[in-house]
């Protein structure tokens, strides 16, 4: 009898396995969650363009059987803008780590949100630079240890959803990989959204964040730590900043419509709002 095959396996690029993710890596889970969401939406895989920069999460489109760009750190949104404007029929999905999106690519992030570029950006936030060995990221919790903050991180982390919402993103949401069904549901909403859709998924990096910041490389313990530090938007209601410090608020922060970006100049005779 032949081995049972995962029905989502057909979405993976032929010959791309085995993958390179560590055991318990959240990016690998996001790969799984994305294929579920895309499958449930019956996306046209010939029209999908997956964009990854550099990092663990950036490898996700390497494994998806779609057109893909990969291997430049922080420029995913520049690529996405060029491809989307050259061919608006493409469904462009970005897979970025937190370092890629918020450190080296931070300016592109706020500009794309401001323009309301019509792409889906999935930020796999593992709270560290995983591929390079666990260095501090703009998302690493304050006082956490990392390989470049051996005595603790003095900086306040970014709240990426607040940043993108303030910059003008029209769909902004956060979840974690402890809640896979919620994550698939959010990804589906993001993929159906017309405009800049930003989904942050807080994910475990047992190898580095786990070992350095919380003292355990056990994937289950790291995932549990994330969930223990998460609360829903509803639970967060009325709580002051002190109580919310170091917590991940999960939910949809923005879901609105605005004209999407179609290029650097209105076409002649086109009015603002006409798009």
């Amino acid at each position, binding site marked *: 009898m032949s081995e049972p095959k995962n029905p989502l396996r057909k979405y993976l690029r032929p010959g791309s396995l085995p993958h390179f993710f560590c055991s318990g890596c959240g990016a690998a889970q996001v790969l799984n969650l994305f294929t579920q969401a895309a499958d449930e939406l019956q996306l046209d895989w010939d029209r999908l363009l997956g964009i990854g920069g550099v990092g663990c999460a950036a490898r996700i489109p390497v494994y998806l059987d779609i057109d893909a760009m990969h291997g*430049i750190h922080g420029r995913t949104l*520049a*690529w996405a803008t060029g491809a989307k404007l050259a061919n608006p029929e493409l469904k462009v999905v970005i897979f970025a780590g937190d370092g890629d999106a918020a450190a080296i690519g931070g300016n592109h992030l706020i*500009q794309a949100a401001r323009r309301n570029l019509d792409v889906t950006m999935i930020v796999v936030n593992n709270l560290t630079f995983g591929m390079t060995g666990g260095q501090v990221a703009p998302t690493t919790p304050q006082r956490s240890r990392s390989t470049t903050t051996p005595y603790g991180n003095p900086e306040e982390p970014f709240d990426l959803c607040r940043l993108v919402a303030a910059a003008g993103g029209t769909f902004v949401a956060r979840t974690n990989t402890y809640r896979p069904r919620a994550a698939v549901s959010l990804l589906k909403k993001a993929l159906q959204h017309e405009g800049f859709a930003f989904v942050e998924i807080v994910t475990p990096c047992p190898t580095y964040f786990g070992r350095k910041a919380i003292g355990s490389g056990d994937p289950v313990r790291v995932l549990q730590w994330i969930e223990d530090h998460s609360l829903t938007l509803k639970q967060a209601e009325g709580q002051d900043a002190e109580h919310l410090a170091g917590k991940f608020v999960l939910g949809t922060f923005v879901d609105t419509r605005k004209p999407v970006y179609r290029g650097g100049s209105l076409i002649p005779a086109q009015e603002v709002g006409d798009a």
Partner: protein
Amino acid sequence: MTTGTPSASRRVRTGTHFMLGNHAVVEGALAAGCSFFAGYPITPANEISEHMAARMPEVGGTFLQGEDELFSVYAVTAASLAGAKAMTATASAGYNYMQEGIEYAVSAEVPCVIVDVQRCRGENYATQADIMQARWGAAGDHEMVVLAPSSVQELFDETIRAFNLAEKYRIPVIVLSETTIALMRENLVIPEPDQIEIVQRARPTQPRDQFVPFAAPPDGCPPLPAFGEGYRILHSINPHDERGGIRWNPDVFDRLYQRITRKVLAHYEDIVKTEAFYLDDAELGLVAYGSETRPALEAVEQARARGLRAGLLKLKTVWPVPEREIGALAAQCRVLFAVEMNIGKYAGEIERVAGGRCEVVRVTKNRGLVHAPGEILAAIEKSLGGR
């Protein structure tokens, strides 16, 4: 004419114009079929962006002003893979930032055109100081194709040639402009559309299951389908095998880098262009590129008027180095004169190619000013002083 396709008359402004060099670049790009431009403000390249912003809507193309030069160069590479002929333009300081994107275009074999209007470290004066960065700026092993126009007409013609070479060989091509010609107005003759040779990239003819996206002869490049056509290709900067897979293997890496460098070097006749002036009987050979060819030619004519057998080899392609032409000249002449507007950079290439077959005299300066013909003539006469 099909709907959405700009008419040739909008794209190609046939006729004689008195035009700014930066605008001639734009007209050349549009004539070549460019439909995507992204740029970031920088002097003295701004008129390229501004003219693109006005012209692109007329031809149904896309103009973007991004947040920096990295955005520009990456937007251009992605637009190209999405099927567009794409270009960006900048000046020296912005060109620094673009090197990383050029490396991507080299490695993933993305056709695109990058214009660098060279300037003097933040000041908009004449220089040719980026000549080595244009060759060596990007990381990793690569050949670069760099064209050096010397007039408004050549800015138009060579921009078209840049697109054609980019499409033909799946490479980034650099148009190395200069403050001098970029901000100069001269006569420009734009031919009829059917008189302009336009190259389109090769596209696969076989279905996806029979198409190997990075398979090509050892000195060739593979056809390139656009995103969305169902070929589902991974375009990574990482060393990739013929299927686009990025698992490390020294032999695979070696084969890729041999091929993407050979595909340039093996097509020397097609890529390397020079022009000869008074070289038939020359014993004093000037070698120059870009705007320095203008005073150099005048100096040659003045030298001829004094009975000196001088001539000029004008390099229209600066990279790859026109080694055959420079080598032949070194074998023919007593002295070669390396004329350029920098500390003396390309002169090293001329000396290398000359290989001791003749004396090489450096005629260089970097003072924000093009050489005066008299300065070059003086250098020629000085070199003959002891004879």
